[in-house]
């Protein structure tokens, strides 16, 4: 086959996933060294800040538990406020990791290897942040466990028709699978760290690595387990936010009672999750000097996903309006008009501009490869997606059927500081992760290095294995991958 033709037709022939001509050893060194060197002062500074955020959250929760839900700004029509908004926000962020690890894995998107580890870590920590809220948002926190189907002497089960209960199952399943998935992926890298370590550290890593030797049988089992978990996690990515959206969609509240919610929430979740990954990676790759592993191409791909899902979300916003008009249901119509022009119009337009308008800049290649610009946009998207949940939750509730009951919701300092505190929780975990665990999946990245290609050295190691491979596979009509 003509070489030129192969070049133009072959989408595999893209920029290398790892730049800087790194060897296997370089990868191991770059990633492992961060967990092995003396802890930098800056880390302590950041960790101290995060820890005070966490303490703030704990203090606010203690204040809430001691005094009651009244310390929040909720009122009669608006029974859900910051707590639920924050819950949905964090669960949404928790979508990116598993999507990157599982779905992109199944679709053989190899660029995922650079970011999957940290994205999964982010997922787990975000879900932990989310899980804080269902527990504390109830009025009687000490009996929140009644939501679980625990056999008891009263033969009293939860009410299985309630979407809140589905939530309990969906989110806890998602958390369990995500955590297992993440840990399984970590095992080979933990072994690498163990092999490089001495003393107590070696012992700890040894236990965590579960006796990994890198034997062929280990690799085979590992690959199988990883594939199975990816297959298990994939439907969860879609189901968890669908179920979260049922909390709203199943109700009779105008603005909530919408069949578009499940896909719209999933798209929104991916959108916000990717934005959060971009926010974190832009900083982390610089600080940890892994720019050659998490390259600008990776970031650009994520920005394309942001552009895509952002447009999907925007489409959903507009569809909702269309359906409100088309259905002829006056409550629905009022709810959406009220969003745009009512007392919460400021929140609505914040959401619209952050989620629909700003990501459109990513149509421009120059901008979506600009580190500063993408950082700013990703922050906007994070803000916008928080406001999306705020708009859905609060503006629908504050004016529903009977005008006599309409009211306005304003958060109290406890609401705000609890939310701020969850970032403390998140970054506490994330900084611990950055400090003690390999932030990039060493083994997986090695797998996508040009050197990893069995044919890499076929032509005296000219580094063009991909071309040759493709030519061969095209010729016999069979994928080599």
């Amino acid at each position, binding site marked *: 086959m003509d070489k030129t033709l192969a070049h133009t037709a072959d989408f595999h022939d893209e920029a290398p996933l790892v730049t800087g001509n790194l060897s296997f050893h370089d990868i191991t060194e770059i990633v492992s060294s961060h967990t092995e060197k003396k802890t930098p002062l800056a880390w302590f500074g950041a960790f101290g800040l995060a820890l005070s955020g966490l303490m703030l959250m704990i203090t606010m929760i203690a*204040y809430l538990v*001691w*005094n*009651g*839900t*009244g*310390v929040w*700004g*909720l*009122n*009669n*029509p*608006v*029974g*859900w406020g910051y707590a639920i908004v924050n819950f949905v926000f964090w669960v949404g962020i928790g979508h990116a990791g598993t999507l990157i690890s599982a779905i992109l894995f199944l679709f053989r998107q190899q660029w995922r290897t650079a970011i999957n580890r940290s994205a999964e870590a982010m997922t787990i920590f975000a879900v932990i942040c989310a899980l804080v809220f269902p527990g504390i*948002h*109830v*009025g*009687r*926190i000490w*009996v*929140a466990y*009644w*939501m679980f189907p625990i056999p008891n002497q009263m033969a*009293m*089960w*939860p*009410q299985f*028709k*309630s*979407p*809140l*209960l589905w939530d*309990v199952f969906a989110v806890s399943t998602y958390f369990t699978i995500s955590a297992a998935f993440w840990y399984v992926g970590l095992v080979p890298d933990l072994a690498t760290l163990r092999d490089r370590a001495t003393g107590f550290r070696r012992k700890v890593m040894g236990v965590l690595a579960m006796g990994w030797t890198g034997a062929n049988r280990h690799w085979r089992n590992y690959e199988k387990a990883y594939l199975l978990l990816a297959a298990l996690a994939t439907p969860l990515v879609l189901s968890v936010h669908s179920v979260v959206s049922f*909390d709203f969609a*199943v*109700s*009779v*509240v105008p603005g909530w009672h919408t069949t578009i919610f499940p896909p719209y929430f999933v798209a929104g979740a991916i959108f916000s999750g990717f934005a959060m990954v971009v926010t974190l990676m832009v900083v982390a790759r610089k600080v940890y000097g892994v720019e050659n592993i998490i390259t600008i191409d990776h970031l650009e791909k994520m920005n394309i996903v942001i552009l895509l899902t952002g447009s999907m979300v925007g489409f959903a916003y507009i569809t909702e309006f269309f359906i409100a008009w088309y*259905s*002829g*249901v*006056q*409550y629905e119509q*009022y709810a959406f008009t009220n969003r745009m022009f009512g*007392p919460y119009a400021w929140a609505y337009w914040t959401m619209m501009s952050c989620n629909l308008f700003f990501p459109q800049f990513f149509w421009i290649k120059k901008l979506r490869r600009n580190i500063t610009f993408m950082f700013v946009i990703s922050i906007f998207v994070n803000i916008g997606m928080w406001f999306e949940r705020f708009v859905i939750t609060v503006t629908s*509730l*504050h*004016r*529903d*059927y*009977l*005008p*006599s*009951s*309409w*009211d*306005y*919701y*304003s958060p109290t300092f406890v609401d705000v500081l609890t939310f701020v505190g969850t970032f403390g929780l998140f970054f506490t975990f994330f900084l611990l992760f950055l400090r003690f665990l390999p932030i990039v999946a060493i083994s997986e990245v090695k797998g996508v290095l040009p050197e990893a290609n069995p044919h890499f050295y076929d032509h005296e190691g000219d580094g063009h294995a991909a071309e040759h491979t493709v030519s061969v596979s095209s010729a016999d009509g069979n994928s080599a991958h």
Partner: protein
Amino acid sequence: MIELPVIESFDANEDTPRSRFWRSVSQYENSSEFKRISGEEFIPGASNAPEGATRRQFIQLMGASMAMAGLTACRKPLEHIVPFSHMPEDRVEGVPVFYASGMPFRGSLHPVLVESYDGRPRKIEGNPEHLDSLGTTSQYQQASVLNLYDPDRMSQVSHNGEASSWGAFKSFAASMSASSRVVVLAETSSSMTFAAARRNLEQRFSSVRWVNCPIGGNEAARGLNAAFGSGLRASHQLAGAKVIVSLDADFMGSVDQDSVSNARGFSASRNVEGTGEMSRLYVVESGYSITGGMADNRLRMKSAEVASFAAALAKALGAYAGDAGVHASHAWIEEVASDLRSAGSTGVVLVGDHQPAGVHALAASINTAIGAVGSTVQYLDANEDVSDVHAELEAIEADIAAGNVDVIVTLGLNPVYSHPGFAAAYAKVDERIHVGMHKDETAQQATWTIPQTHFLEEWGDGTSRSGVHGIVQPLIAPLYDDAHSVLEVVALLGSGIEEFGYDLVRSTWRSMFSGDFEKGWRKVVHDGFHEGSRFRSVNGSVSQSGVQAAMAGVSVAAHTGLEVVTRLDPKVLDGSFANNVWMQELPDPTTKVVWDNVAQMNPKTAEKLGLSAKLDGGKYIADIVKLDVGSASVEIPLWIQPGLADDSVQLTKGYGRNIVSDRAIRKTNFFDTSEVTDVYGQGAVSTGVGQSVNSLSSLIATATASKAGSGFMIASTQDHGAIQEEGEIVKKRGLFRQATVEEYRANPKFVAAGEPKPIREDWADYPTLWENSHPSKTEEITSSKYHDYQWGMVIDLNTCTGCSACIIACQSENNIQVVGKDQVSRGRDMHWIRTDRYFVSGDGATFDDPQMVLQPLPCQHCENAPCEQVCPVAATVHSPDGTNQMIYNRCIGTRYCANNCPYKVRRFNFYNWTKTLPETVQMAHNPNVTVRSRGVMEKCSFCIQRVRAVNKTANIENRPIEDGEVVTACQQACPSQAISFGNVADPNSAVSQKRTSDRRYELLAELNVKPRVSYLGRIRNPNPNLA
């Protein structure tokens, strides 16, 4: 507190000159301090909690009440509290006993039936056998039980600000000189025994000047006096009325003394179904009252010009010859006059209490001229006091200034507060004896203050509004040992010897029976009233010269400038209910304001005066307006209310109190919000709430207004999110459906037209999902014993006035907590039933002159309840008898149910409102209803405790439940009987009959939630010529 006879004997024998042992010098000298503490085992405060009744007292009181439960008719003058050694025969633990009694209120005895649990009076209903109640009440009767348990009540006799004792006061009373010149200021009373005691008092002292100060003034009586020559009382029989003209009279509002019978009569006159002809109500008023909301034709007019309107109307009917002034040729006059003329004896004119006597005289003249007397209005010979209270008080002030008064006695009144000008004179009298419930403004200046008993703690008597003699019987021993009734104090002052209320009342009544006294007495105590006694109805002719004379001082000219109208408050009245937290938190029926009084004016007037109010983050933030009337001025926050007369400001009395409470200020840790979890933490609850407007001595005055401040937050239960297009939304959503009587005759099913429709398909195209597997069809439900009864409610919007008696009745029945101004402003009020107020413009009504409608809204008990489906722990479920119930101990407080309730009737306990409640307030709780703790949802239960009580009785008696046997609290109180409740599975039940009405509709029926509460649309009967 336990009275040991050994110690007590010192008191009894203190004057005997025999040798005795003494413990200390103070005992030997018998100082007042010693006397106070000698009755107790330990020094004061050592063994008792600092506030309210102690556990020990509580048990004593329970014991005392138990004793009484068995001894209703033969209570001994002094009870010694002993435990039961034998249970009284008819006593069953936990089963309430009902006692008929009377509530002395504003110069009449209001017949009540009091529910008592284990000797603890708890709920007040109307006496169903008494013609003046027929079982219904206004909110004042309902709320009065909380006054008994008011933790801020004065508990001890004090002298010159020092704690003293009843014994000391007795000695003082005995030692009073017969030559003392005494002034007595008293609440108007209808008590015969009290009148006798007064006569004794007047005999004992050389000079007694007795002034009755009626709440709300006595202009009506003075007007009738002018017209007929004696202090008559107008009593209206509106049931047969065809044309009703209200001249600034809120005759169905709770501040009207006859509101209960008026509302009942009015609702009977609105019976539009069948061939029933419907009355027409004209209202001419400056404010927007609930009566105005019921009006068929309503005219906004300054109160100051109503006299002219009345004169013109009287003139048109040939009932007045004087000058009619500015409204002589008002477009309404001819229409109203011709309607009244043709109505003849079925017409009636009513006048508001704050209108001058001349207008009342004119109304009497009109009513006489059209032949209404004896038909729709009766003038009763109630011997009303017609003295000019203001003039008398001024004369007393002069006397005091001249040093001609030695003793002033205030009985249950608070002149220092209600007549600020009188305060200076009051302080100059040597002996100032005050009897009252609180350490109020007058008590703080008095030399002797005597705690007054609540009417549930005392014996008394009186006459009802129509003149039926009745009895006040105690249901509980006074919560505070020192408390005595006004009657007992007057009797003591009159004779110098202590006499007990029981003996006094019995001695009066001895003369009232011809036969066996004990037998008659027993019957009266049992029934609460003495049958047969009524006031004589007077059929005299009107003295035109009297009317002219009464009108002489009344201006009929156009009023220029800003008028200020001061009325009694529909919640706290003149301030006598100010310390009643239920009343403070009751939304004003029309403005929905709580915990404040406001200066109402319409948007135009506010704009003209440069005043504004805005909604900021759901809170109503208003300017403060300064009103100058002559030398007096008040500063009060602004409230903009549509529909008021231009240039008219409406104020209400009763706020700005200063009561001193003995309770300690609650101190909490910085991390503890319990200072907001109930309203009792910061001293007396009414102190500092609102502004006193008593310095404006004239009820209708001319004022100048200026802005005195801004940024005042007013808490209301409804205007958190009000927008102008609200009325349109209400109409579009079919929330409140109404039609004129012509429209109704033409299309009796007019409510169907108000039903919102989907634009493309019919509702029939949306079948109910899973209808056949509906939970109500499951075996567990259908086989239940309760399943035979399916409870439902119908609320007739044609007769509901929105008076709010139901709200207080519900609060009292269902232990609904009070949360205070701050929490209400955050939208956390707890009422289970509310009255939604909407303004309607369009269809002839404009934004400046809108209609106002009120709609009571309890839980709708949906058959497809959206709340039930979303609860993750099954804490809200359907009962087999078709009601939606909260299982409080299962509730974890996700608030999902409240979000999903389309009617927003669910209420969440954001804090533990009961954690710090004073013990006495807890005594007002219903033992059959769970006191909800923090973090759980609550809502109307259809008074399930009452349903179950009847279930139980019927089950024991092995019989079906009769229709009307279960009565909900709201239904029971409702003066206009707009609420029907019963078994909808029985086609013959009253509620099922109502459900067959053409006017029936369900709120938000298109949601297919199938509410068990339905509404009957309102019919209006406007004069077509006055559209």
